[in-house]
């Protein structure tokens, strides 16, 4: 298994990440953004019809994101190696790069890293002023009647993907953490931005 040895990313690696994301976006095959959004939303809608419960549907979509994210990171590890380090703070580089590479001109508007507290727990918060996943959801022909009743996050697929990304990167760094990611603010629910909070809790030694 590949092992990350670099402790922190330097200017050169960050620059490489910035160039790499543009290259990936330029070279990759594209699909219409609205179509992709509808694909995700109606996956949730049909899963809710199947399971009888939106919460279960959103959980399945998170699992879908996690499995898809795992596949993606294992496939692109060679490409990602130069921008990986053992520092949780540097996950910002992989987040920014993959965000741009997948979504084009959409960007992370705010990112903050919180160093380890007395229990060794580290935290990351990021915010986006625009979110393709919940755009127009209040007027959606299938979801408008259910939307107010749904408590979970429609970003569950995204959460799954990045939980997989971050867990795998930390695994390659030989760090044993529980990674828990939640959407703490949502544009469709009236918040001024989308906010994702990630908690990195060190696993007890006997669980490693």
């Amino acid at each position, binding site marked *: 298994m590949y092992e990350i040895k670099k402790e922190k990313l330097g200017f050169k690696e960050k620059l490489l990440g910035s160039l790499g994301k543009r290259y990936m*976006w330029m070279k990759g095959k594209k*699909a219409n*953004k609205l179509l*992709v959004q*509808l694909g995700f939303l109606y996956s949730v809608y049909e899963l809710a019809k199947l399971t009888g419960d939106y919460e279960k549907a959103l959980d399945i979509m998170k699992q879908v994101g996690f499995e898809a994210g795992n596949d993606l990171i294992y496939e692109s590890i060679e490409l990602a190696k130069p921008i990986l380090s053992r520092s949780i703070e540097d996950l910002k580089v992989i987040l920014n790069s993959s965000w741009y590479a997948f979504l084009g001109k959409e960007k992370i508007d705010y990112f903050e890293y919180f160093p380890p507290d007395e229990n060794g727990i580290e935290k990351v918060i990021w915010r986006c002023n625009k979110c393709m996943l919940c755009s127009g959801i209040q007027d*959606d022909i299938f979801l408008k009647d259910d939307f107010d009743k749904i408590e979970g996050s429609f970003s569950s697929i995204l959460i799954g993907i990045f939980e997989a990304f971050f867990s795998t990167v930390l695994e390659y760094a030989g760090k044993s953490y529980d990674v828990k990611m939640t959407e703490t603010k949502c544009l469709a629910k009236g918040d001024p931005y989308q906010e994702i909070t990630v908690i990195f809790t060190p696993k007890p030694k006997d669980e490693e």
Partner: protein
Amino acid sequence: MNLDRKKLLKSKVLVDLLKLNFPALISILLRDYDNKTVRQVLKNIGSDMAESWLQYFRPKGYNVKLILKVNTKKTFGKLKMQVKKHDDGFSLIFYECPLCRRDIEIKSEVPYCISISGFYERYFNILASENDKFGFKKIEGTTIKSISGGNNYCEHYFKIIEKY
């Protein structure tokens, strides 16, 4: 202020987001549900997408071949595709499928691109209900070949089940 859907319609994302979504979804659902149920869920997703998509992007005219080409270009860009006419319907063939991958080792029992047949079944049934020049009232879509199932190309067959 969030993005509105008209802006989304004019923007693009990497197709890999969908290409990874459906295989993972199919594999997770097959752990708890039978093949027939999973196929129906995937077709329903495509069908819902078509109904919503038509609110934002409607084709002109009633030439099925032209509509399929224009809509494919809008949804997935330029792809190597073909539309074949049959006595009882038509087929949409993708030599380069937007949802399947050629590099997978295990053949999928549910085609990764099955939602495309659900999409165009609903899409043309809506359009045909508004315009009798299509020559049919109702079609039924089936994915009969898929790259994810080990075929060289994907074929979605649309059978006319009700004529004007």
